[in-house]
């Protein structure tokens, strides 16, 4: 990745964060968990996932499955910036006339599968990966999971099965933002040492700073190595990244802001003001 490519991705990530912030107005959204995976999402769609815009259902495409479905604002923001989704459509957020709601669904072109219930898409993605193996095609299958999501036993069950079937075309990316919905992961069901757990389950593991695009490049390059093993990238991130009012705060899970607050947060994002939202617990669902 050249410096200018890097700058371009950073600029895209900033725009995606703007979309996320705007989606938190009115009915609100899961803003913190969306902001943590922006670089991940942008990097995947810009540099990892091979797909032809004109043939979106081409069976030779790479697949990205969003298992932590509540961070869908990051996905839709990325779709807009990649030219897959009309920006105006985001104004239909939470309108029953459209399908832009709190979790992804296939009514939105580019979404491979719906999610919302945690611990499902590793298995669905493993089914797709298995079919690609049966057909001997070189599709790459990426699943983004949360870290709280790793509480679900089905994730670990699927990893055992996927490794038993040698699904090395499957990459699980953990958005390790260190928070469950309401509490730090390590205060509830501790996950560390997390890399060791995945390794013990037979995976090839890389751990990187999930906000550093060059590190993500390194992680995705490293993760094609080693035949027969499911690849895991643990991306250490900060929940609410980019907004001091939100960053790493347990009480900023689901937020619904006013238009004035959204304007303040956009100023924060661009570094023009420090933390601007001072209320204690915001709307938590």
């Amino acid at each position, binding site marked *: 990745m050249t410096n200018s490519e890097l700058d371009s991705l950073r600029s895209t990530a900033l725009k995606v964060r703007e979309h996320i912030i705007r989606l938190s107005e009115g009915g609100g959204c899961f803003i913190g968990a969306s902001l943590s995976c922006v670089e991940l999402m942008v990097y995947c769609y810009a540099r990892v996932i091979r797909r032809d815009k004109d043939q979106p259902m081409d069976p030779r495409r790479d697949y990205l499955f969003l298992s932590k479905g509540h961070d869908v604002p990051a996905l839709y923001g990325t779709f807009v910036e990649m030219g897959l989704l009309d920006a105006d459509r985001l104004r239909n957020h939470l309108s029953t006339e459209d399908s832009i709601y709190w979790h992804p669904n296939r009514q939105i072109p580019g979404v491979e*599968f719906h999610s919302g219930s945690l611990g499902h898409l590793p298995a*669905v993605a493993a089914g797709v990966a*298995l079919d690609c193996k049966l057909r001997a095609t070189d599709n790459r299958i990426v699943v983004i999971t949360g870290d709280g999501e790793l509480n679900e036993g089905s994730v670990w069950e699927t990893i055992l099965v996927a490794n038993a079937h040698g699904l090395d075309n499957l990459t699980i990316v953990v958005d390790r933002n260190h928070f469950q919905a309401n509490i730090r992961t390590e205060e509830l069901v501790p996950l560390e040492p997390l890399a060791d757990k995945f390794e013990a389950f037979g995976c090839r593991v890389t751990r990187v700073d999930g906000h550093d695009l060059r590190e993500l490049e390194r992680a995705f390059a490293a993760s094609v190595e080693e035949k027969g093993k499911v690849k895991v990238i643990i991306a250490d991130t900060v929940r609410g990244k980019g907004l001091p009012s939100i960053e790493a705060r347990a009480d900023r899970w689901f937020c619904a802001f006013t238009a004035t607050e959204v304007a303040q947060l956009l100023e924060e994002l661009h570094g023009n003001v420090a933390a601007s939202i001072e209320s204690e617990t915001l709307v938590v669902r």
Partner: protein
Amino acid sequence: MTYEELLIKMALEDERIIVMTAENRALVRNAPKALGARFIDTGITEQTMVGMAAGLALRGRVPIVHALAPFLTMRAYEFIRTDVGIAHLPVKLSGYIPGFLSDGNGPTHQSIEDVSIMRGIPGMEVYCPADEDDLVKMLPAIWTSPAPAYTRINHKKGSYSHAAYQPGKAEVVAEGSDVTLLVYGFLFENALQTKELLEKEGLSVGLINMRSLKPVDEGSIVRAAAGSRHLVTIEDHLLTGGLYSIVAEVLLRRRMTAAVTPLSLGERWFRPGLLGQVLETEGFTPGKMATKILNSSTYA
């Protein structure tokens, strides 16, 4: 033809078919050799198996998945409902040892709410063949339909030679003006003998093998209700949500009423044991069913 012979034949003719099992191989012992990589045993992982089946179906496959009925329908229920149901994918669920067929296993293995919970999923079809002959007559239509489907697998040999299967239609074995027995699955054979016992008592007895519980053949129920003084629903299932409920729903929708006696498990698990003894204890032998029907208020 057996279940497995049909499965292998259809899979060899249609490369979309993938045979999966959560390490329940009783029905598919020869499938690994016959199908190679299109036989997938995920281990004791019903949730992962169903999620993977959804992924395979997204790629154009038709997965036929196997597990013991209670673990398939309940351990993996949310995966069936959320991944298969919401996406309306052609995943075909084969539940082994449903109802009384779990005989001595005990309540952990009793799948006696499967009809109720599976038919609660929008778009999910529910099938209950009477015996092996019925099973192999029904499965080609079930497996080639684009809908998700749950089948109560019953491969016991029966004495009755079934009519060809018409999708979504019941098999009307006989019509009768005094009483009509509505039955599905394994209890068909005993219902057939119950019919004979009742006829010896001078009753005119109808018998319907329901075959498909969703979609249900409403016409067959309505005609029975109109043509018989008495209906009896017979099922190795809890009272809630099974055939008795289905009949009630159909009659209410048609603004009809009828005298209906349910022979079901009510609201409890059955006493485990050898199948013959279970049927005696639970009152589902032909003799006990005939007595219950004759003693019901309709004939008092």
